[in-house]
C-alpha cells in the first residue's frame, strides 16, 4: 500500500523508488573493487612496464584477461553510479543535469566497451 497521495505522485515528488538498489550496487562494486584493484596495481608494479612483449604476454593469459575484464566492468559500473550522484547533487538546472547524466552514462558504457574490446583482442590474438 502506498501512502503517497495521487497529487504527490502526479507532481513527481517523493522517492523515485530505485535509491536502495543504487546504494547497494555502489557498495557491492566497492567491495569487489578492493581485491580487483589491489591485484591489478600490484601486478603492474612488478612488471617491466616499458616492454610491450611482457605486458601483452601477461594480459593474454586466460585468468588475467578474465579478471582484467571484471575489473573494467566493475570500475565502469561503480564510477557511473558515483559520478551520477555528484551530478545530481551539484548540477541544478534540469536541462544541464539531464545532459550531463546522459553524457556520463554514454562515456562510461563506451569506455567499458573499449576496455573489454582491448582485453579480448589481447587474449584471443
Amino acid at each position: 500500500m502506498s501512502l503517497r497521495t495521487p497529487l504527490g505522485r502526479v507532481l513527481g515528488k517523493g522517492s523515485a523508488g530505485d535509491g536502495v538498489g543504487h546504494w547497494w550496487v555502489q557498495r557491492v562494486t566497492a567491495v569487489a573493487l578492493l581485491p580487483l584493484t589491489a591485484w591489478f596495481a600490484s601486478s603492474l608494479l612488478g612488471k617491466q612496464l616499458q616492454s610491450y612483449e611482457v605486458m601483452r604476454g601477461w594480459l593474454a593469459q586466460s585468468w588475467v584477461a578474465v579478471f582484467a575484464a571484471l575489473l573494467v566492468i566493475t570500475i565502469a559500473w561503480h564510477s557511473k553510479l558515483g559520478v551520477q550522484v555528484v551530478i545530481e547533487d551539484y548540477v541544478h538546472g534540469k536541462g544541464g543535469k539531464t545532459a550531463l547524466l546522459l553524457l556520463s552514462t554514454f562515456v562510461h558504457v563506451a569506455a567499458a566497451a573499449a576496455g573489454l574490446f582491448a582485453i579480448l583482442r589481447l587474449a584471443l590474438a
Partner: protein
Amino acid sequence: MNSPRPVSPRPLSPHLGVYKFMYTMSLSIMHRITGLAAAVGFLALVWWLMALATGPDAYARAMACLGTPLAKLLLIGFTFSFVYHFCNGIRHLVWDTGHGLERAQARRSGAVVIAAALLLTVLVVWLGCRAMAVTP
C-alpha cells in the same frame, strides 16, 4: 480553472555554514573529488589498454606520453588520489555496518586513512618508478 496548489517550501536540512569546521569534513568532500579523479583515471586505463591492444608502436607512444614530466607529476597525484579513495572507501564500508560512527572514532579513523594513504603513495610511487625505469 486556476486551482491554487499548496506551495509549501520543500524541507531543507541546515546548510554547511552552520557547522564548526572539522577536518573530517574535508575528508568527506575529498572522497568525492578523488572519486571523480578515479573516473578520469579509468578513461586513462582504457586508453592504455587500447594502445597495448593496437600494437608495439602504439604502446611505445603511450608509454612515451606517460614518461613526460607532466604525466609523471599527474601519475603521482593520481596515485595519492586513488589510494586515498581506496582507504577511505574501506572506512565508508565499515561505517555502513554501523561501526565507528562515534565522533572520536570517526576522527581517529580519518587520521589513520590519511597516514595509510601517504604511506601507500610513497610505496606505490617507489615501485612504480622501478617498474617504469627498465627499458626493453
